[in-house]
């Protein structure tokens, strides 16, 4: 459940310098990449040494050292240290300082190190190794990142930086983030000698499995770091190490300006903070601890407690005391116990943890009477629970949240997992289990038209708090019958959510999706969820201009527990920063009045919410605390499916142990609302509306006594631009989504007899590219009336002539056929929910359809059922995240059928590269005329390739080809059918492994194993078995 430890700049414990930085990630500006499934675009290769003038094509330009990846073993480094060959000449510079000299010693040593580096460059060395070996009782290591940055900056200033490569030899780095930072600030290679030596020591002590040698362990460690680095770059949409090196894709939290300007220039650091003195003191503290004389008994290291809670270790907001107090309070409905719990959180004087802990509320001299303050039952309507999918949490937990939020008039969120339709109707006892907010995430699981119309808000998740810039994965063992049904997938098949939405690569694309969703459900609010980082204000402004009704700014400390640790700890910023920036940017651009701003991220007390309101939020999200109210005790084993209290698990045995009640959640929210009222009375506010954006009621009270916090300056959070009074501080008007101009109004008018009386109707329309999202509003109308069943096949048949705009045929349900003579832009059939889309070039055209591009990119994204027949070639990512639609097309671009989980795709021509990446279900048939599909075009990591020989398959393919020929007049389909005997052998069946397993079909490797196994069977029998395969 995210991170709940103090920011590095507030923690009493000495922190590695690495912890003062946070990774940046792509958010709307550009898409993040999936480094696993799209490995082919990723690279860790770099060429290090002197960088010469790239416009000079001389042989010397190639005199560099090629590294397959940036991690050097101890042996590699020794080889490098002794290299002296042509232009490659290495020298080692020690990066230590005299511990007792403190800040002056550190500064002096940094200067000295930079002098020596400068001198080395002038002497002709091209590889500088900055080393902290040689630590002793007098000398402490200079933090490797600081040494790196100091030398880097000196050489930049002297205009000699490109002449050398900087290499780090340090005992410090051991986590992915550490390496990412060193590389981000210029390191060409890193030798983490202490980590490596620790691994060898583990082997030496017998703590590694017998079959893992020390070398193998070392190799595994390096491989893990490399994979982690790829993951880190990909969050920003960067695919190569060479691009990431020196790019400084980080933000600092709590480093002061002079430190940043001197060593990390260009890095955003918005709240000032510590300087070199604190860094020196932290280094001294660690040095003193390391060198204190030991007794034999004191050989255990300090407990740490950063990841798992330990007494005497790092402070955690969520600890045994706060968890048990809040649970006691909500279970016995005891406000006094709740106050004890919030006092623990709010009273952060001793344990500085969050930025909001540093703020003070400016109460009025005379409070207003509490009775005059807005009632709690009105305030709770502003609360929402976070997006935790059914799948990550159990049915019982998910429904309890929905029931509770519906009772109080707030909103619960489906998360990414779709929703069982039976929850859309009220239960006999009056409970409503329908989630008011339906999330549209990158996996588009269960996003059907019916799903979308049964919502009060449709939330587009651009990024998520705990792991911004990443997708996610629901492991196969957590996907049971029920979850698979709701997600329109197959039990046992792992479900991958891609990092980006494949229909959002830019702000314009986001505007398109907002438009798509508003068309399907014009009554619903369309929300966009962003994560706090520097620049989120600008993105939020774009979101507002793209006509989103709500923008959610998520902080870094919330989010799922089942997230990689590197992301939980090092990506994303606190919501205070993101919210303040968003509010300021929206105000300055007069956009604030037309969009609601929501925030979340470990909101735990009435005071937290009041501060959020004063900083500009009018709605508030909670996830961790409602879960704890239902029984969560933060075991952090969510990813193992062993949640002992039945919340984050699908295991029926454990689910039976769930003891949460909607009342507990309701109590929690009413407690929060009552606390808010107390604060509001003292602040002089009668309504929450009055409070929104009133930063003048906050004082940035700095904890002067604290050795780190005294450098922090929060004035930037409290900045309120002077604006004319007509510029409202909160949402006062609705967005104009431009729906009036939609072509669908005409379609719906035409379809009235069908909608009312089921009379079949046909129609013909001209279409131009300004007609976007054609079919979606009609589809929404049908779903509202007829649910997921839609209309009978053939009820509506509309013909279009012309060039269709984006999202043609999006979210079209059963019973609707759209036929297009012309061509389309991107996103044809997005979210197809049972309808049929047919497209072919103009009858009068003279080009060959099978060789011409007919439709754009990202066709059938998230489609769950329905059919598409395309007489032409489609662009990239055809049928990405297809969950059940059938398609025939005559050629596709790269990444076809990516992440497909179900459905049937037939490609009658060449595909691009990386076909079937991450494909875990459904089947594709590719007509491989050129013969290079298996070797050059298909990503075989998750699929087997087979010939088309099984009779059922042949019938299916032929049947589809016949329909394709009949519906589109496709010459290619006709030809293949006529020459079937020659054509059949060229078809390749693309069959995912997981799908095979689920269907009970054995794979070739398993068959071969079985053939080898029986020792006493005759060779002839064995051979016969293999043949039948």
């Amino acid at each position: 459940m995210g991170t709940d430890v103090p920011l590095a700049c507030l923690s009493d414990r000495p922190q590695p310098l690495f912890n003062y930085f946070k990774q940046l990630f792509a958010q709307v500006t550009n898409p993040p990449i999936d480094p696993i499934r799209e490995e082919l675009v990723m690279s860790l290769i770099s060429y290090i040494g002197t960088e010469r003038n790239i416009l000079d094509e001389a042989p010397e330009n190639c005199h560099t050292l090629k590294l397959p990846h940036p991690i050097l073993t101890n042996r590699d480094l020794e080889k490098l240290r002794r290299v002296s060959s042509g232009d490659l000449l290495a020298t080692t510079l020690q990066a230590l300082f005299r511990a007792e000299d403190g800040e002056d010693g550190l500064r002096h040593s940094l200067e000295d190190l930079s002098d020596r580096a400068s001198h080395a460059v002038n002497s002709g060395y091209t590889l500088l190794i900055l080393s902290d070996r040689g630590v002793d009782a007098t000398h402490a290591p200079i933090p490797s990142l600081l040494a790196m940055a100091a030398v880097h900056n000196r050489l930049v200033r002297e205009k000699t930086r490109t002449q050398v490569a900087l290499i780090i030899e340090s005992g410090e780095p051991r986590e992915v983030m550490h390496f990412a930072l060193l590389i981000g600030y210029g390191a060409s290679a890193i030798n983490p000698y202490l980590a490596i030596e620790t691994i060898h020591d583990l082997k030496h002590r017998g703590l590694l499995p017998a079959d893992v040698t020390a070398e193998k362990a070392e190799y595994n460690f390096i491989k893990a770091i490399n994979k982690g680095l790829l993951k880190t770059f990909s969050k920003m949409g960067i695919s190569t190490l060479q691009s990431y090196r020196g790019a400084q894709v980080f933000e600092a939290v709590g480093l002061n300006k002079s430190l940043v300007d001197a060593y990390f220039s260009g890095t955003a650091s918005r709240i000032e903070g510590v300087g070199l003195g604190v860094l020196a003191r932290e280094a001294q503290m660690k040095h003193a601890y390391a060198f204190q004389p030991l007794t034999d008994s004191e050989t255990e290291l300090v407990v740490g407690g950063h990841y798992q809670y330990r007494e005497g270790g790092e402070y955690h907001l969520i600890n045994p005391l706060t968890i048990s107090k809040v649970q006691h309070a909500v279970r016995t409905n005891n406000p006094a116990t709740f106050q004890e719990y919030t006092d623990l959180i709010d009273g952060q004087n001793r344990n500085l943890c969050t930025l909001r802990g540093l703020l003070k509320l400016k109460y009025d001299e005379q409070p207003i009477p509490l009775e005059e303050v807005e009632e709690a039952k009105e305030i709770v309507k502003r609360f929402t629970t976070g997006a935790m999918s059914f799948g990550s949490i159990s049915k019982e937990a998910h429904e309890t949240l929905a029931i509770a939020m519906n009772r109080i008039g707030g909103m619960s969120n489906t998360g990414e997992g779709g929703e069982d339709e039976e929850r859309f109707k009220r239960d006999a006892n009056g409970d409503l289990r329908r989630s008011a907010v339906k999330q549209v995430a990158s996996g588009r699981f269960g996003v059907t038209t019916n799903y979308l119309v049964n919502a009060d808000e449709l939330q587009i998740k651009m990024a998520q708090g705990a792991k911004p810039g990443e997708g996610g994965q629901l492991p196969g063992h957590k996907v049971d019958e029920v979850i698979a049904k709701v997600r329109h997938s197959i039990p046992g098949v792992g479900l991958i959510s891609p990092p980006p939405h494949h229909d959002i690569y830019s702000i314009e694309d986001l505007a398109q999706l907002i438009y798509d969703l508003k068309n399907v459900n014009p009554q619903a609010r369309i929300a966009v969820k962003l994560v706090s980082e520097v620049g989120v204000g600008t993105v939020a402004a774009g979101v507002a201009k793209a006509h989103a009704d709500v923008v959610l700014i998520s902080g870094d400390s919330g989010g799922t527990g089942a997230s990689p640790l590197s992301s939980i700890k090092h990506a994303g910023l606190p919501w205070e920063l993101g919210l303040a920036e968003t509010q300021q940017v929206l105000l300055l651009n007069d956009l604030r009045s037309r969009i609601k701003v929501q925030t979340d991220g470990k909101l735990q007390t009435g005071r937290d919410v009041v501060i959020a309101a004063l900083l500009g939020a009018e709605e508030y999200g909670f996830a961790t605390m409602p879960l704890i109210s239902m029984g969560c005790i933060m075991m952090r084993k969510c990813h193992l499916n062993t949640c002992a209290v039945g919340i984050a698990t699908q295991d029926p045995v454990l689910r039976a142990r769930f003891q949460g009640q909607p009342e507990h959640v309701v109590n929690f929210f009413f407690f929060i609302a009552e606390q808010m009222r107390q604060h509001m009375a003292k602040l002089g506010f009668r309504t929450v509306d009055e409070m929104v954006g009133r930063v003048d009621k906050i004082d940035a009270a700095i904890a002067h006594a604290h050795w780190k916090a005294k450098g922090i300056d929060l004035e930037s959070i409290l900045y309120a631009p002077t604006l004319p009074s007509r510029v409202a501080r909160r949402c006062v008007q609705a967005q104009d989504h431009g729906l009036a101009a939609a072509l669908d109004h005409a379609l719906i008018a035409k379809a009235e007899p069908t909608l009312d009386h089921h009379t079949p109707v046909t129609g013909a329309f001209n279409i131009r590219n300004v007609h976007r999202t054609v079919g979606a509003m009609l589809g929404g109308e049908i779903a509202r009336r007829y649910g997921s069943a839609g209309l009978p096949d053939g009820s509506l048949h509309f013909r279009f002539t012309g060039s269709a705009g984006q999202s043609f045929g999006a979210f079209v349900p059963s019973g609707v056929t759209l036929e297009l003579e012309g061509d389309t832009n991107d996103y044809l059939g997005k979210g197809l929910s049972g309808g049929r889309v047919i497209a072919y070039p103009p009858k009068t055209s003279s080009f060959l359809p099978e060789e011409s591009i007919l439709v754009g990119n990202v066709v059938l994204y998230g489609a769950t059922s329905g059919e598409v027949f395309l007489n032409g070639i489609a662009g990239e990512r055809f049928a990405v995240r297809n969950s059940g639609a059938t398609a025939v097309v005559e050629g596709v671009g790269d990444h076809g059928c990516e992440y497909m989980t179900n459905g049937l795709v037939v490609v009658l021509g060449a595909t691009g590269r990386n076909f079937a990446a991450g494909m875990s279900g459904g089947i594709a048939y590719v007509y491989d005329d050129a013969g290079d599909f298996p070797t050059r075009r298909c990503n075989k990591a998750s699929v087997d390739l087979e010939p088309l020989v099984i009779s059922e398959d042949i019938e299916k393919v032929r049947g589809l080809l016949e329909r394709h020929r009949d519906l589109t007049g496709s010459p290619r389909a006709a030809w293949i059918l006529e020459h079937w005997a020659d054509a059949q052998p060229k078809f390749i069946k693309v069959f995912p492994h997981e799908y095979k397993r689920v269907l009970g079909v054995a794979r070739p490797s398993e068959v071969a194993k079985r053939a080898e196994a029986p020792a006493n069977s005759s060779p002839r029998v064995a051979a016969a078995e293999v043949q039948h395969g």
Partner: protein
Amino acid sequence: MGKVTGFLEIQREQPTRRKSDERIRDWFEIYEPFPEEKQREQSARCMDCGVPFCHTGCPVNNLIPDWNDLAYTGRWEAAIRRLHATNNFPEFTGRICPAPCEAACVLGINQPAVSIKLIERSIVERAWDEGFIQPEPPVQATGKKVAVVGSGPAGLAAAQQLRRAGHTVTVYEKADRIGGLLRYGIPNFKLEKHVVDRRINQMRAEGVKFETNAHVGVNIPVDQLTDQYDAILLAGGAEHPRDLKIPGRELKGIHFAMEFLPQQNRRNEGETVPESLAILATGKRVLIIGGGDTGADCLGTSHRQGAKIVHQWEIMPKPPEQRASSTPWPLWPLQLRTESSHEEGGIRDWSINSIRFTGDADGNVTQVHAVRVGPPPKFEPVTGSEFTTDVDLVLLAMGFLGPVKNGMIDQLGLALDPRGNVHCDTSYMTSKEGIFAAGDMRRGQSLVVWAISEGRKAAAAIDNYLAAKTESLRQVHRIHA
């Protein structure tokens, strides 16, 4: 961590106890051995919680998830190091601690808790058996001298910590043997005394000096300590018992538990208690007033001495069979506990207040007159519920009010807190500079595990205090409490 699915696959198990009628014939510990394979199975049930409530619930903050995993993987030497990092005497707590850790265990929310105490005991006993536990004398002497008054678990823990930090430590014990309540008070069947001796021997080898029959404030003047030592720790316990001043109290045969129990400890050492002083339950009708652990100790002791019949009465109402809703998880539960002594016999009863004793012509008690009462705080007598029970021996086990005052505490002129315990600041220092207090003497009567916690923390405070006063000590490591 144990095993990820351990808690789903393995049930909680405890070692079996020897049969009641067999075990009351001797004074040895009552548990059968528990095989290693089962020990490891039990440690597999630990879920390595992200927030380990057991660890916080334990007064010494044992690193329970860590050593559960080490026990599960059979890394016994690493396990004892991890255990010793927080607890000087796991062999004591592993036998007699009521285990607040298990009450707080997350698995205990809806399943039987992890058998933490059993694992702690398994680790430490294995360590002694394999020779992992050796003396750990300090590498460097500080030149500072510390006196510890009282050799119970608080004093001993502090002494060991201080000695290992390099200070010269002398423990003053008023009794003839070392151990405080560990030696004289806790019955042998709960804690055999060779277990105590084994640990004391380690401490002697580490250089801790012990003075027995040294009663500070009685035969050792307090200024002998204040003159000689750089710091003094008072860990003399809370020995002042709560009395029952009702008519007939002066009759013969009515004794405090702490007059009765230590006699049996001595007999078990081979000593003879003179008949004129002996308090024995043999053949008698015994009444134990007090339903706590001391009372249970009296019960087991009475059984083994061959009492005719034993009653145990408590003034509070009978606790519920399951955790009371007023003490929800993870708090220490108000719940009916059946100790080993209760299994052996005796008749327990609750909500009873004794009103007077009556005796025979020789001044021996023969009857107790009692009445049933309502719940606290009023304990209203229930009209018409008066009754009488025949008794020959009455043992008062009603708790302890605080340290004994007229002695070293008064002589040192130390301030007391409102409850009558020695008052200390947040660094365990009393109102007199350089004099510290820890354990029951500071906290009031409590558990052995709390005493160990107190001793460790006080030792850290004393070490800080000595270092602050001495330039040369500033670089010396600090004791981790």
